[in-house]
C-alpha cells in the first residue's frame, strides 16, 4: 500500500477510536445536560429528535429543584458532612502518615499496609453492625452518623497517601530543626506540616469527593429526607411513587456531579499514585 494512504487510514482509525471513547464516556453526561434543560413536552415526545432541543431550553427544572424540593438542604448537608469528615481525617491522618513514614525498620511499612487494607473492607459488610452501633449512640436517621462513619474509609486512604508524601520529604530538614533546639513534636508541627501543604490539600479534596460519592452508608442509616446528603437525596427522593421527574433528577445529578468531576480531573495523578502506593515513580 502506498505510504500516504496507509497513513491517512491510520489517522482516520485513530480519530474514530478516540471519538468512540469520548462518546462512550461523556454521552451520559451530555444526556444529563440535555434532559436538565429541556421542556417536559419536548422530553416526553418520542417523535422528537432526542439529541437536541426541539423547543427552547428552560430553567424550569432547576427552579423547581430549588423551590419545591429539599435540594438546597441536601447540598448544605453534604457540605457540613464534607467539612466535618475532612477535619476528622486531617487531625488523625496527618500525624498517622507522618509517624508511619518516619518509623524505623519495617514496622511502619507493615502498619501502613494494615491501615490501608481496611480501606478495602466494604460498606456492604459493615453496614449491619454499624447501624446497630449508630443506634446505640442515638444517631440513627441523622447525618451526624455519616460524619462518624465516613472517616473509616477516608482515614486509611489519606494516611497511606500522606505516608508516601512524608517519605519523600527529606528527614534532614527536621533533624536540622531539632539541632537548632526544636523538640521532636515541634519538628513535625513547624517543619513537616508546613512543607506538606500540597499533600494536605490533596487529602482535603479527596476526602470531600469520597464523602460525596458514598452511597451505601447514607442509604442504610438515613431515611428522613431533610437529613440526606446530596447523592442520596437526588437518587432516591425525587421519585414520587412510580413517577420519575427526569428533568429535575438530571438537573440535580448534574449540579452534584460537576464539582466532583472537576476535583477529580485536577487531582487524578495523585489519586492514582496513592492507590498504587507509589508504584509509579
Amino acid at each position: 500500500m502506498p505510504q500516504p494512504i496507509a497513513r491517512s487510514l491510520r489517522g482516520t482509525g485513530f480519530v474514530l477510536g478516540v471519538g468512540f471513547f469520548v462518546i462512550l464516556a461523556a454521552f451520559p453526561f451530555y444526556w444529563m445536560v440535555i434532559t436538565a434543560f429541556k421542556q417536559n413536552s419536548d422530553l416526553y415526545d418520542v417523535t422528537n429528535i432526542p439529541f437536541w432541543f426541539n423547543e427552547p431550553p428552560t430553567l424550569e427544572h432547576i427552579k423547581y429543584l430549588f423551590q419545591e424540593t429539599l435540594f438546597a438542604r441536601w447540598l448544605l448537608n453534604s457540605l457540613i458532612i464534607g467539612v466535618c469528615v475532612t477535619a476528622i481525617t486531617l487531625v488523625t491522618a496527618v500525624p498517622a502518615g507522618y509517624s508511619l513514614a518516619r518509623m524505623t525498620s519495617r514496622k511502619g511499612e507493615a502498619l501502613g499496609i494494615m491501615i490501608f487494607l481496611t480501606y478495602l473492607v466494604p460498606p456492604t459488610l459493615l453496614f449491619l453492625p454499624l447501624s446497630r452501633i449508630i443506634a446505640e449512640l442515638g444517631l440513627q436517621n441523622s447525618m451526624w452518623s455519616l460524619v462518624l462513619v465516613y472517616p473509616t474509609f477516608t482515614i486509611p486512604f489519606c494516611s497511606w497517601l500522606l505516608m508516601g508524601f512524608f517519605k519523600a520529604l527529606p528527614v534532614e530538614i527536621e533533624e536540622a530543626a531539632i539541632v537548632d533546639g526544636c523538640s521532636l513534636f515541634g519538628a513535625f508541627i513547624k517543619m513537616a506540616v508546613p512543607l506538606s501543604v500540597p499533600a494536605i490539600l490533596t487529602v482535603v479534596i479527596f476526602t470531600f469527593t469520597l464523602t460525596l460519592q458514598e452511597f451505601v452508608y447514607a442509604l442504610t442509616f438515613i431515611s428522613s429526607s431533610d437529613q440526606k446528603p446530596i447523592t442520596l437525596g437526588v437518587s432516591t427522593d425525587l421519585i414520587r411513587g412510580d413517577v420519575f421527574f427526569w428533568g429535575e433528577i438530571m438537573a440535580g445529578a448534574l449540579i452534584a456531579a460537576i464539582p466532583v468531576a472537576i476535583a477529580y480531573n485536577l487531582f487524578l495523578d495523585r489519586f492514582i499514585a496513592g492507590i498504587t502506593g507509589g508504584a509509579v515513580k
Partner: protein
Amino acid sequence: MAVIAEPVAKPISRYRFILDRREVLEAVLVAPAILYVLLLVGLPLLLAVYYSLSAYTIYNPTWTFVGLANFEQILQDPTFLDTLRNTFIFTFGSQLLGLVLGKFGAFLLLQPFPGRKIVRALIILPFAVPVALATIAWQWMFDSLYSVINWTMIAAGIITREDAPNWLGNPYLAMLCIVIINAWRFFPFAIVIFLAGITAVPQDVIDAATVDGAGFWRRNYQIILPMILPIMAIGLIFGIVFTFTDLSIVFLLTMGGPGGATSVLGFAGFQTGIVSGDVAHGAAISLFMLPVLLVVVIFMLRFIRRREI
C-alpha cells in the same frame, strides 16, 4: 534567628520529656487513626461475624448462638445460589470488559495529539462522578419508553418500535445493563492505570529491546506487559473489590429484578438485613464476600512486596 542562639530556658515538663522520645511520639501520633479504624472497622467486622452465628433480628434482638445454622439455611436457598452466580458474572464480566476498553483507550491516549488533555478529562468522567448519579442517568437512558438507545436504533432502522428491547425488564438484558454500567464506570480507571504503568517503563529498556530486534508485539507483550503487571494487578484488585461488594448500581437500577435476575451479594445482604430486619441472615449473606476479599488481600500484599524489589 537570634532566638536560636540563646539557650532556651523553658520549664521542662514531664509531658515534653516523654514526647521527645521518638518511639513514644510515633505511637502517640499514629494512635488516633488506628483507634478509629479498630473501633469502627475492626469491631463491626467481629460483630458481623457474631451476628451471622446468632439468631439476631431487629424484632427479637437476642444473642442466641446458633452456630452455622444461618449459613446452612442460606446455602439451601436456590435464590441465594443465583445471587452468588450473579455476583461473579457481574464482577468478572464488567472487569473484563473494563480492562479491554482500558487497554485500547490507553493505547490511543499514549500518542500525543491536539486536545489530548480535554479528551482525557472527558474520558475520566465516568470514574469521577458519584456512581449513584451516573446510574440514574443510565436508568433514564434505558427507560422502557423514552430510551435514547432504542430511539437511535429505531431511527437507524435496526429495530422497530414494537420490538424495541425493554432493557431493565428482561433478565438477560438487565444483567447486561449492570455489567455495562460497571464496566463503563471502571474503564477510565483502567486507562489511567495502564497509562501510569506504561509511562513508568524506562525508555532505554524499550530501546534496548528494539535494538535487539524485538518487534511491536514482542515489545508489548514480553517487555512492557510483564513490567506493568504489578500496577495492573493493584488496579484490578481495586476493581474486583469495589464491584464484588457493590450495592448502589443494582439498588438504583433494577432492585435485583426482574425476578432476582440481577440480585448481587451486597444487595441481598441489604434486603435481608436492613429492609426485612433479619440481621443474622443478612450478616451471613454479606460474609460470603469475605473469602473473595481475603484472596484479594493476599494478592495485594504480594504485589506490594514485589513492587519494592
